């Protein structure tokens, strides 16, 4: 049992260009960035099932700055999935949907977000629990 993160973003572009931005190593380095420094992450990503890759950023006191992963699904140009490992092992899946009129929806799903300690014995959905958290924290 774990949390799932889902995000959607609508881009004014073509499916082909968006796919290229998601799969081309040099393009990835331009937008997948360390959000604290704004620096793009060096990577050796390839859209090939089974390929293991790394994204690297500056190490800190708490983290070696390395995200590792393995490509799981490549369905050009609509679906891409890989593991995303830094401490925990998550799965990131991108789904592209052509909306027409030069718009493309990009859907991100990141699964496996958990804290093993926290989830021991948890019996109901964490997403639901997080909704509750939002209310409590307001």
């Amino acid at each position, binding site marked *: 049992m774990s949390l799932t993160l889902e995000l959607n973003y609508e881009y004014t572009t073509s499916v082909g260009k968006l796919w290229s931005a998601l799969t081309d190593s040099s*393009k990835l380095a331009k937008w997948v960035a360390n959000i604290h420094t704004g620096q793009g992450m060096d990577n050796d990503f390839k859209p090939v099932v089974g390929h293991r890759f790394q994204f690297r950023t500056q190490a800190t006191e708490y983290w070696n700055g390395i995200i590792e992963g393995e490509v799981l699904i490549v369905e050009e140009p609509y679906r891409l999935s890989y593991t995303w490992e830094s401490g925990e092992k998550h799965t990131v899946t991108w789904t592209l949907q052509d909306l027409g009129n030069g718009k493309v929806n*990009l859907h991100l799903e990141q699964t496996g977000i958990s804290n093993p300690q926290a989830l021991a*014995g948890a019996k109901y959905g964490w997403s639901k629990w997080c909704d509750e958290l939002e209310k409590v924290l307001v």
Partner: protein
Amino acid sequence: MSENLRFRDVFDAIADPTRRQLMKLLTEAEEVPLHELTSQFEMGRTAVSKHLTILKEANLVVDRKVGRETRYRLNAAPLKEVQDWVAFYSKFWSINMMRLDQLLKEEEE
């Protein structure tokens, strides 16, 4: 000072459904006496007390004695740690997906 000392990991404390239920009940009122909390569960008073103690150790509830009665109140602040855990990834991708938007616009030009 010792009152603020956290003995227990907040993730541990909320891992149990009974304790989450207790916290939910505590969100519904300013302060709730033990007997009112106990009446919501099939388990006995001692078992409920044990769960409250764990929440107290994680600084998620605060109790006080009023006469012979113990009243409990929620302290939500430590939950921020849990929220941050998910918020980190959410923020990471939201910011980077905006960067991607910028990149695609630049490519257009």
